[in-house]
């Protein structure tokens, strides 16, 4: 999670040996059923629709995007909680789908998930000790009583909780402390990959930083690889080496964290970054927003062609509406080869050859309410 390691430079990971996670062509489609007697499938939610994702050992990959774009579903598909409709996921060289029985159970411990809401992901009737030991026992890591006690103490220290916490129950802790328990539980089985789905978004601002710092410290200490899912772009930038931006089930841009924020190339990423308010009034006064019209289309009826074309201010007459852009390396001076974009016109947009259509509203709120919107003021 530092900017100085080699891993921070994003180039497409071609050295297979260095990959911990390799997901190819992953699709997760949920059937929409209707009918009382026969479960008739009347359509699909295309929650994840063709994603390639590689994460190197020891790196932190951040996945961002708006609500409903498929981040959590992709995360679950990766750790095997949601079987992919299509595609393969391999972790540490093993195809997750091919794992069965005891082998699956044994390998399950390699990838753990940390959830957004620490309260609902921890069984309220179990003490912290029993929560932690449960996973260890399932993976045969709790056979020796003395060793287990030592390990529990080590885990608590690692996540910054007092030893007395073992005998307590989840409701006796604050949100930040509960998230620490969730992290300790994931750590207990010595995983290689942790998928953290919105690990700090339920926490208070003042406590978020504690958990972010904790995740960073533990990564160094336990050689962890992280896939962090979050909608807070500042948090993701801080924590990630590389970042993928999702829109309606697909990756639209991928780059090293610094490159993505310094030079976003996809129209959606540009709009997303321009929309984030920053806690600095001077910067706020200068901020030029790209306001998008409308809303995310439904993932059960994704638009044809580029999925962003219904909201894209740079949309062109050709290609955008009928040809789905692939994630590709762009030919722009100074842009690293690891910076990939799924937009037909990325080069022309960056050079300024293609200009955005400003979606300027025709009337201000004041005009509207004065009844001037349609020229028939009767109020």
């Amino acid at each position, binding site marked *: 999670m530092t900017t100085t390691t080699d891993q921070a430079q994003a180039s497409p990971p071609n050295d297979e040996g260095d990959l911990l996670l390799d997901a190819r062509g992953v699709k997760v489609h949920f059937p929409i059923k209707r009918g009382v007697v026969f479960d008739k499938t009347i359509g699909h939610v295309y929650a994840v629709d063709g994603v390639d994702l590689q994460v190197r050992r020891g790196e932190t990959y951040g996945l961002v995007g*708006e609500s409903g774009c498929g981040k959590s579903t992709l995360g679950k598909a990766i750790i095997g909680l949601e079987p992919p409709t299509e595609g393969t996921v391999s972790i540490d060289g093993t195809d997750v789908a091919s794992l069965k029985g005891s082998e699956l159970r044994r390998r399950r411990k390699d990838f753990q998930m940390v959830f957004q809401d620490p309260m609902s992901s921890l069984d309220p009737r179990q003490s912290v000790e029993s929560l932690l030991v449960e996973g260890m026992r399932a993976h045969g890591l709790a056979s020796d009583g003395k060793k287990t006690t030592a390990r529990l103490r080590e885990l608590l220290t690692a996540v910054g909780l007092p030893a007395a916490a073992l005998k307590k129950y989840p409701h006796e802790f604050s949100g930040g*402390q509960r998230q620490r328990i969730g992290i300790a539980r994931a750590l207990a089985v010595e995983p290689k990959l942790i998928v953290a789905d919105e690990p700090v978004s339920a926490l208070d601002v003042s406590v978020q*930083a504690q958990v972010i710092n904790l995740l960073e410290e533990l990564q160094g200490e336990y050689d962890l690889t992280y896939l962090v899912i979050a909608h807070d772009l500042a948090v993701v930038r801080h924590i990630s080496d590389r970042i993928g931006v999702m829109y309606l089930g697909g990756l639209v841009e991928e780059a090293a964290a610094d490159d993505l*924020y310094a030079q976003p190339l996809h129209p959606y990423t540009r709009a997303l970054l321009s929309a984030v308010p920053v806690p600095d009034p001077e910067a706020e006064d200068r901020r030029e927003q790209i306001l998008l019209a409308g809303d995310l289309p439904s993932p059960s009826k994704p638009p044809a062609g580029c999925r962003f074309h219904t909201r894209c201010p740079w949309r062109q007459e050709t290609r955008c509406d009928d040809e789905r852009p692939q994630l590709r390396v762009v030919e722009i001076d100074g842009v690293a080869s690891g910076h990939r974009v799924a937009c037909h016109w990325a080069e022309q947009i960056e050079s300024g050859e293609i200009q955005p259509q400003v979606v300027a509203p025709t009337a201000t709120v004041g005009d509207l309410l004065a009844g001037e919107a*349609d020229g028939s003021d009767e109020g």
Partner: protein
Amino acid sequence: MTDTATTPRPSRHGDEPLLSVRDLSVTFRRQGEEPFTAVDGVSFDVRPGQTVGLVGESGCGKSVTSLAIMGLLPPRGNTVEGTASFEGTDLLRLPADEMRDRRGRDIAMIFQDPLSSLNPVVSVGLQVTEVLERHRGMSRKAAQPVARELLDRVGIPDPDRRLKDYPHQLSGGMRQRALIAMALACAPRLLIADEPTTALDVTIQAQILSLLKELVEDTGTALVMITHDLGVVAGLCDEVNVLYGGRIVERGTRHELFANPRHPYTNGLLASIPRLDGARGAPLTPIRGSVADNLPWDHACAFAPRCSQPVDVCTAQTPPLEESGVRALRCHNPVR
């Protein structure tokens, strides 16, 4: 925005406060439990065309403050003290039916939880249209296209179709936006917005915040913006109140407060959030502990157990709120 660093933006809509809250306290009493004071002597003013922010983390009393002003606290089990005068009328002492009347007309609120405030059996379009008829005196014919335009402007896609939808047919985010459209439609003189965009995506949040800005600037609505997001505050509020443990601990114009935070809590908050701009890589500086560690305000500073620079008196005496102009500070040992 053209505010200067030290004075609040002179409102072009008038300098007299529209709402003046003084020493507002709310104490909850539950059987078998110690009384709990959620809001503890809060005072602030809002002028027409001005946006005043209340910022703080969860549980610091933001929602209770707004519900108390709106007369929407549960009818039993709490005591409300102080005054909230709206053009000379104390809203806290207004009979329920008069308050209800005001709420529709002069004062509107956008809630954190939108479900409770939409009528489930009336289509969204009709709800917005009716507000326009009732409050803007428009005919139905004139109101309909305006309602459509408002829904469009709050980012509800396909507004022609959505006009006919009932609240339950909309997603949570869309319901929130419908509610915002309704609040805009009544062009209230005072709008209290409690975390109006917290549940929304950033691109939609940007649309809504720019609409709220327009409303304030165009119609002179006085806006109380309640949020935990310092970014939202930095862009929108003329004046910011930082709450901690039910009390205002610091106040200033947005430029002053962010450039020169003097309360260790404000300062700590700003140091603990990752920034989209600026350098990356350095660890964040968190505030230690959590609100669970707070001391009671009676004989101490509630923040003392988490403070980065407490002094002896902090655990012996309540720091008073010292005010000078817009600036206010409650601390025995402020930053710098």
